């Protein structure tokens, strides 16, 4: 960002918004916008509470389980779709439908089938995350350099070696990009799942705060969730940049 012809660090952009927020809050224009300083203070009060730590633990567990499942299913499915044309044809359309479909609409149905609880949230995270991971893995493996596959064959690579030493590594940049998008969707999945189920984790807290009009706490929680999603995404983006460096100009 540049201001008056000088380069300004990106933090200042955030700072300006926080100042505006503070002023709007101080002016008491709306009850749903408390001053930013009060939100930060509320954040520090809720984080150490047992209620929060338990909610965070449940949410993280659902997120991790759903993402783990998405990786375990998504990457093999993507590889299979890329390598076996028939599988690609059969599943391709469905994956494309689901990657763009509003999965949230399915959550009430999941609740009816699986019940109201953590499992439903895990399945929601899985459904939010898995399709984009499948698609990106498929693209990555499909684009894998054919010359490298031929080279490995010429040196007597086994089928297994072809996958572990060429195809997966070759597709790694795309797989990581897919993983980053999947993780971002996964965070949405946790929040939406828990909001709809409404009795567990962070979703329960959101319900509690908004129903009792605890706006400071509500916004503090929003910021915490945003920061978490951003941090996960940046961590994967960091890995991506490392891989890009090693693979150079592909």
């Amino acid at each position: 960002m540049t201001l008056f012809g000088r380069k300004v660090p990106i933090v200042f952009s955030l700072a300006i918004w926080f100042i505006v927020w503070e002023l709007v809050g101080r002016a008491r224009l709306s009850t749903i916008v408390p001053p930013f300083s009060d939100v930060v203070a509320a954040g520090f009060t809720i984080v150490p509470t047992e209620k929060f730590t338990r909610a965070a633990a449940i949410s993280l567990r659902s997120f991790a389980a759903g993402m783990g499942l998405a990786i375990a299913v998504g990457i093999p499915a993507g590889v299979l779709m890329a390598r076996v044309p028939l599988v690609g044809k059969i599943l391709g359309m469905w994956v494309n439908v689901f990657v763009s479909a509003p999965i949230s609409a399915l959550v009430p149905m999941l609740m009816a089938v699986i019940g109201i609880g953590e499992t439903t949230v895990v399945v929601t995270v899985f459904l939010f995350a898995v399709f984009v991971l499948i698609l990106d893995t498929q693209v990555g493996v499909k684009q894998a350099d054919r010359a490298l596959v031929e080279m490995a064959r010429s040196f007597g690579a086994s089928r297994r070696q072809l996958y572990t030493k060429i195809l997966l590594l070759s597709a790694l940049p795309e797989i990581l990009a897919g993983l980053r998008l999947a993780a971002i969707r996964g965070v949405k999945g946790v929040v939406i799942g828990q909001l709809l189920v409404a009795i567990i984790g962070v979703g329960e807290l959101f319900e509690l705060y908004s129903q009792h009009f605890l706006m400071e706490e509500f916004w503090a929680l929003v910021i915490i969730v945003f920061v978490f999603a951003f941090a996960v995404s940046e961590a994967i983006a960091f890995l991506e940049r490392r891989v890009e460096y090693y693979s150079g100009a592909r």
Partner: protein
Amino acid sequence: MSARPIVEVRGVSKTYDTGVEALRDVSLSLPSGKLSTFLGPSGCGKTTLLKIIAGLMAPTSGEVFVKGQKVSGPGPERAFVFQEFALLPWASVLRNVAFGLELRGVARAERQRVAREYIGRVGLKGFEHRYPHQLSGGMRQRVGLARALAVNAEILLMDEPFSSVDEQTRRKFQEDLLELLQVEKKTVIFVTHSIEEAAYLSDQIVLLSQRPGTVFKIIEPRIERPGKTPDEIRRDKNYLDTVDEIWHVLKQYV
């Protein structure tokens, strides 16, 4: 040629799924310990023929025998050097050169020892820990050559290995290759579209016709290379005659 054949191609034809007929009834004997070249215009099927010998591609009809064994796939007695290098972009020079041995399950210490040796021999000492994108085209091809040498195959299959590098690198590379082969004693099958390159390097030149490729003529340049500098070879009467002879044959269908 007196040397016993190490590769025999018998009645090989290849028609692609697209309907393109690349090769028609090609029969050849390639002598052991010599450098043979497939020379012909672009699209004459010379690379196809090389890949069939490598076992990377199956012929539509006909057979290839390597050391008396019928070829049904790649084998440890053959190593391939690719036109576009085909290096692993995520692996260092050291790992790339050792990759053939890695696939064969050779222990890390041993395969790195061998790889270091060949990295030195192709003149890349000091570049072991660089990555392919940090190297020039000529250096990348040296990595490809070192990788093929490291598996210690008797037959080296080279698919237009110098076509992606500039002219001076190409000449230097040709000279180094001849020098290296003096030491290594390998059978080399080399694909090129350059008349000078074929004449400079080869013991036997197989001229292929335009698509569908058939054997048009086989030329054996009798150039006495040992003890001569590259420049002397390029001024040698037999070298110049060979270039002329090839040109006269090729002219018929240009």
